[in-house]
């Protein structure tokens, strides 16, 4: 756990921009914040330090009565997403205060967390990069199969953790060491070098590291 401040955002998409030396840089555009602080937690009352932040405006009909009461304490309207960020030290933020994209600066390294694109039930070639079987030389109906999955009487079982077909994607994933190329605070945009997990319009958490 990094225990450093972060911000919730929406992945807008990817593009490329030119650096000053003429090289083209692939960037992901993230619409980050502004995220109001909904709740503060500190070591004295809760046992640990954290802030709860919210992102994405929601209509009243989409928010449960319990959450409506919780949001009313911050008095900043209703939101779709909330997220708790654990911090090493007690935060200097007040409830209701905005966290904006300005907390990041160009050149800084960040880690971005998102939910990867769901691929459904996939075979071993796509899921684990197995090589499969040859296309010809007598091979029939086994071109994408995993081959042998174990030995014989000894050990007499398939080992735990054996790479097999199954569900792929739609898991929470974090990419570290992504460089911030530019911050556009007036438009609430962060441009991060390289790819980040998740589909377009997916919810991402950008944290300092």
């Amino acid at each position, binding site marked *: 756990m990094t225990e450093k401040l972060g911000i919730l955002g929406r992945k807008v998409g990817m593009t490329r921009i*030119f650096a000053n030396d003429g090289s*083209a840089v692939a960037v992901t555009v993230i619409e980050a914040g502004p995220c109001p602080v909904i709740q503060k937690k500190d070591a004295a009352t809760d046992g640990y330090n954290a802030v709860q932040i919210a992102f994405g405006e929601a209509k009243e009909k989409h928010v449960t009565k319990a959450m409506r009461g919780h949001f009313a304490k911050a008095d900043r309207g209703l939101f779709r997403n909330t997220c708790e960020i654990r911090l090493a030290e007690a935060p200097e933020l007040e409830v209701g205060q905005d966290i904006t994209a300005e907390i990041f600066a160009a050149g800084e390294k960040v880690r971005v967390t998102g939910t990867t694109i769901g691929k459904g039930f996939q075979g071993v070639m796509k899921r684990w990069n197995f090589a499969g079987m040859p296309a010809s030389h007598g091979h029939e109906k086994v071109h994408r199969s995993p081959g042998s999955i174990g030995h014989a009487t000894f050990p007499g079982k398939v080992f735990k953790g054996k790479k097999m077909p199954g569900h792929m994607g739609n898991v929470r994933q974090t990419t570290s060491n992504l460089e911030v190329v530019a911050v556009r605070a007036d438009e609430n945009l962060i441009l991060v070098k390289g790819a980040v997990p998740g589909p377009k319009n997916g919810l991402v958490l950008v944290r300092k590291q």
Partner: protein
Amino acid sequence: MTIIEKIEREQLRMDIPEFNAGDTVKVHMRIIEGEKERIQVFQGAVIRISKGTTNATFTVRKISDGVGVERVFPMHSPSIERVEVVQEGRVRRSRLYYLRNLKGKAARIKPKNRW
């Protein structure tokens, strides 16, 4: 206008002249060698223009010491100092890959008739 379009539009260069496949162009490239910066000129025929915003490129082909040389330039790269159109050519397609199979006199492009 979407956010991505807006970011890409800011990157575009409006000072590059319009040219087509078949035109002879001089591309002035900024080359950085260690500390020094100098301009290198690449002159040849445009054999392909690939459309796009920041992804747009064009390919220039020339014959250097009897060897065909092709170079792909990003249309909106800040490394391009300027592009000069030397001569407009009369061609009947947009991708002139057939020039790769031709040599000498046959590989010439006729200039465009401007009445």
